[in-house]
């Protein structure tokens, strides 16, 4: 298995290289530059700034310089947050996003899998329809509706929780962002679980288990769930990557200092180094989490062998 992991990681390098290259040139193709704004800069000042940030060199030169720098671990300065480097920003923001994201994913798995399993076992019952109806609603309501709604109800009207703010990560400041992040995931995971469990419960090995006279609880927990959770596990790889890298909407509304904002504002600001930094970071996370998912598959599914 060790050899497998090394091989997978080795093959990640060309993937990353392609991601970096495509992102670098795509970013530059976009019209408008980092220093275009309402108060246009006088040409001599723009020239000074371009020089300081190496933007006055030909594009291919900038590209090779950039590749050289990232190999040495230097992701450059941000054009928008002048007193911080891209590494500073990611290191400051990621722990926050990670903490919220893991909490949200954990809640989503516990609630989603439980609800989905019960719905599958009671297929076509009132409970089933209720859970699936709620799940559809959860998927359909976007977070930019849900977040202000929660803030208004629990923050302004009931005054139970702060409307927004981070407050050095105090628990009460995390509740609403975590719930907002978790809700659509609960919905999605419960639907996935239900679908896959319904199918698994009808398969031959479950019939065999029952024929052996096993208690229904053991049939479900030990046999059915193992197979039934496979689609959820494969979904969890990219979903975790997406959730722990934050959400621009949730960060904007709850004033959470995570890294989700950089994916959007970085691009809007044409803050090239920040965009490149978060793209590379995200790519590494996806590659890493997909590898983890594949390894877990090996444990859960006897048909899959990690070689």
């Amino acid at each position, binding site marked *: 298995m060790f050899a497998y992991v090394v091989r997978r990681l080795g093959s990640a390098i060309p993937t990353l290289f392609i991601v970096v290259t495509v992102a670098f040139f795509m970013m530059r193709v976009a019209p408008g530059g980092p220093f275009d*704004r309402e108060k246009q800069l006088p040409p001599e000042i723009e020239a*000074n700034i371009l020089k300081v*940030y190496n933007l006055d060199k030909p594009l291919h030169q900038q590209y090779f310089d950039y590749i050289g720098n990232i190999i040495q671990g230097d992701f450059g300065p941000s054009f928008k*947050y002048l007193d911080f480097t891209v590494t500073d920003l990611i290191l400051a923001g990621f722990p926050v996003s990670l903490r919220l994201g893991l909490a949200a994913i954990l809640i989503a798995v516990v609630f989603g899998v439980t609800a989905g399993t019960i719905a599958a076992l009671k297929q076509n019952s009132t409970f089933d329809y209720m859970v699936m109806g709620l799940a559809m609603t959860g998927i359909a309501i976007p977070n930019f509706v849900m977040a202000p709604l929660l803030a*208004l109800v629990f923050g302004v009207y009931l005054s139970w929780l*702060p409307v927004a*703010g981070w407050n050095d990560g105090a628990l009460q400041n995390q509740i609403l962002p975590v719930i907002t992040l978790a809700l659509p995931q609960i919905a999605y995971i419960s639907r996935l679980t239900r679908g896959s469990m319904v199918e698994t419960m009808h398969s031959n090995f479950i019939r065999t288990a029952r024929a052996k006279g096993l208690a229904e609880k053991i049939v479900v927990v030990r046999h059915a769930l193992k197979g039934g959770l496979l689609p959820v596990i494969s979904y969890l790889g990219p979903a975790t990557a997406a959730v722990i890298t934050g959400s621009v909407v949730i960060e904007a509304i709850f004033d959470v200092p995570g890294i989700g904002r950089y994916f959007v504002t970085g691009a809007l600001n044409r803050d090239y180094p920040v965009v490149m930094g978060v793209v590379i970071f995200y790519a590494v996370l996806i590659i890493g989490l997909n590898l983890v998912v594949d390894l877990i598959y090996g444990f859960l599914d006897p048909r899959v062998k990690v070689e």
Partner: protein
Amino acid sequence: MSEKRWQGLFGLKKLFCAACVFAVMTAGIALAGGNLRVASMGEPASLDPHKVSGTWENYIVGDMFVGLTTEDPKSNAIPGVAESWTISEDGKTYTFKLRQSTWSDGTPLTANDFVYSMQRILLPETAAEYASLLYIIEGAEAINSGKAAADTLGVKAIDDQTLEVKLTGPAPYFLELLTHYTAYPVPKHVIDKVGKDWTKPENMVVNGPFKLVEWLPNTHVKLTKNDKYYDVGAVVLDDVTFYTQEDRAAVQKRFRAGEIDVAMDFASDQIDWLKANMPEETRIAPYMGVYYYPINSSVAPFNDLRVRKALSMAVNREAICDKVLKTGELPAYSFVPPGVSHYEHPAEVEWKSMPYDERIKEAKALLAEAGFTADKPLELTLKYNTSENHKRIAVAVASMWKQIGVKTELYNAEVKVHYADLKQGNFQVARAGWIADYNDAQNFLYLLETRTGPNNYGRYSNPEYDKLMLEAEVTADLTKRGELMYKAESLAMADLPIIPIYHYVSKNLVAKNVVGFEDNSKDIHRWRYVTLK
């Protein structure tokens, strides 16, 4: 994941205790009246006054540093580090007498600190976006373009407490300009030692009423009273915390919930609710800025005055201010807003008082003269940067133009693309805005000079206009200077290279217990004057 590990990661219990302690502490501070919580509406790009360029940064750095002159609560220029000054006969040489004062680490602040700072902001490698504001100082432009050495700058320390500044022309706004953050002193002794990290809380040394204690990017910046500030006795607040959240709707909710004391710049679409529910907290005041549509006069048919005039006449500014915006903006018939220093009455378009119906009639006639009829209507693209307000105004203007038979296509783009288009002259009619850097008509009118380049979006070029503005630049007599600029603006209001639409207002939410927050036309508020009831 085991339970123990989970707790370690999330630290629930610890966090909860910390939260309780924090809540008690903040309650304690609030009782002492010490911590003002300001929603400054944007993460500062930097806390180095030479590198910032936004109003949201000015709210923070403006109380960490004090220049030669500084602002009073109404934002008028008053003596700062300079106790007094003399101005030469020709208005070009200023000699400042500095008070005895120190940096927050106790190092004396001398005239040499100002020499260093003004040279530093102009050095090309500093890459200061706003350096051009100091081009009025002798030698500044050449240094900033890399054509001259820093020591050729017309700023000299006569002795530790005396500073001489030479200007390229008499600039009656110079003392006010010195209140601007581009003219703040920065601590050479710290920058030499730690370089660009000097703005980190552990290094930062300032000379203003408050010093930096915490800066968490995209969360907050916290300042605390600087005991070494020369007028520390007059400062009441212990701390000021700036929350950098940009989302106006979310900030407004925080304000309602009492989490914020002052919220700068609320969203216009909230005005009806605010007026009904929080009339006392809602502060609206005239603001030195203009919202306008430049017309690209370098392309046909917009090089035809009749077309530009028809478009301008058909815009019903009153309807836009009263029905669309509803926040008390002033309909604009001039480029310079009313109430600017030494320029009380801007030059307005001559047809301002004409009833709107007649204006429509005349606009139609002008278009017909220019060759546009119902069979061959004028078709144009109106560009604006993506924003709900810009869209509402553009839709309203398009429907007004429809009355005179103009077919308007609306085109919106994100802000970077929009301004890149404007810079390259890639537009017909577009949305733009301008907020003055200092209280002087020249800061508006120079936008229409040929030499201004990219900021003169519509590429307006009238030699007579340029001549008048150049003449004003070298005129020391304030009345005469005002008259020259008035003549220039009158020319522009006849040529109509732009459609002024409205003059801005500032829109802030100020809690009832905040005392000393004075509305003013620059929307600059120094927290050293504010107290909490």
